[in-house]
């Protein structure tokens, strides 16, 4: 796994944490506010859907960036016990 790909993966995880945190701010759940409407849905509903879709998109990026079993050097014969 290249350094660049590893950094990209960490960046995706950080973005997922940030997006999750945003879901609990007034940007998504303003108390008692229902405007603006989008596609016939009140703010918390559509903003919540956008947050969920973003998280799934970030997950797909993480899936692309994470190494397969064969690519991971730590899986290629080096046992846990020998590292400990």
């Amino acid at each position, binding site marked *: 796994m290249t350094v660049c790909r590893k950094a990209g993966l960490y960046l*995706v*995880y950080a973005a*997922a944490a940030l997006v*999750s945190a945003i*879901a*609990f701010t007034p940007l*998504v*759940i*303003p*108390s*008692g*506010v*229902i405007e603006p*409407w989008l*596609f*016939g*849905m*009140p*703010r*918390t*509903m559509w903003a*919540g*859907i956008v*947050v*969920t*879709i*973003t*998280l*799934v998109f*970030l*997950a*797909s990026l*993480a*899936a692309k960036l*994470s*190494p*397969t*079993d064969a690519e991971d050097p*730590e*899986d290629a014969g080096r*046992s*846990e*016990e020998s*590292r*400990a």
Partner: protein
Amino acid sequence: MITWLWILGSVYAALLCLAAYVSWKRTKTADDYVLAGSNLGALVGLLTYAATLFSTFTLMGMPDFFRTHGVGAWIFLAVSDGAQVVLIIWFGYHLRKRARARGFRGTAGLLGSLYDDKWAGYTYFGGVFLFLIPYVAIQIRGLAIFLEAIFPEALPAWIWSAGILAVMLLYSEIGGLRAIIYSDILQGLTLLLVVWIVAVSSIMQFGGVGELFAAAEAVDRQLLSTPGPQGLFTVQFLVASFFGVLLLPATQPQLTTRLIVIRNRKELNRMAVSIGCFAIVILIPVAAIGMYGAVRYPEATTREFLANVLLFEQSGIVGAACVVGLLTAAMSTADSQIFALGTELRSLLSGETTAVLKQTKRAILGFGLVALIFSVVSSDQLVLLARVSFNGTALVGPMVIAGVICRRAPGREVVVATAVGLILFIISLVGLVPSLVGPARLDLLLLVLLGIITAVSSVIHNRRTA
């Protein structure tokens, strides 16, 4: 509807028998029985994980939650599920690596090995036992509520519950995890179909999504924002619930096992992303059904609302499909949980393989009976009971995650702190200690404290190793 119910119910029963028979024929060893050969592809993985995650709680509890508390229910579950997908990719990678190196018989056994302390395994097992039983019970309870509504005065709820449990235990005992996975596939597809049919018919009665939300606004404007009409969805409540749901793959053994039994990491990652898509696809119609209920049945009880919207308003075949959908939803989640408890117990036992497997099967029966008793005495508040289960098991999360991801597991202080946290949370549920500490919720506070203790211990232990 009764005729359709007999037809669809018989088809489902026949498929279950087939699943149990095929699984029984294919199961050769004890590990095969509890881990289903550990060779699942992404699609089967998706359906079994989704069926285990989305249960009666989703099909019955969540529409009622939307109806009563409004759109904040989306943040409560869907956002947490989205984040959970990312966690599956990250945690699944580390978990599978550890499982390859140390062997995997169950999370409790793995923790005992990683911490080099059998009490880590016992603490984990104690935590999941205490908080999974209510979750199993609500599956059975939810279904019994529904069957009582269809056949009023035919049988008392506890006999319905006992019948469901007997069928579930029978095919689990015969076919093991493979039979459960086959039944999950049936359930995942049925659940998806049923919620969409009901949701589309609900939306069409209003003419569209916009009209449905406008009608909900006219009933109670507070349904369309947080904290909702009853003020439930405070930021603290949502954050505490978020962590409860987020940590499920690490804290609830029926889900952890499914990360292990996938063929390879590529398939696991595919499965994770598909679960996120599945969550969106299943929760959108659930929200619509809930909003429909908020408009049509604002004052109805949970039972009245569910019976009307899922049964009496539907055509015969759809109503029957709802019943079968619920039956499969409840059974596939509850059997996975009871079976996972058995698997966890097995991972803590040592001795001759056949004797241990016999003990495991007996334990599965025992767990089923405890769940049955709890289902009879529990309340109808399905989502809130599920939330207690999520937040209770979340308390073992820091211990599990640190044990799995750190090169060297943290010390015994983490195990002790986790046990104390679990005890405090339980006694807060029975009212012996307050559930609020100042302005903070005890469950959230305990989770944060356990997270800090675990992080500090991990840093100290890994620095010493280096």
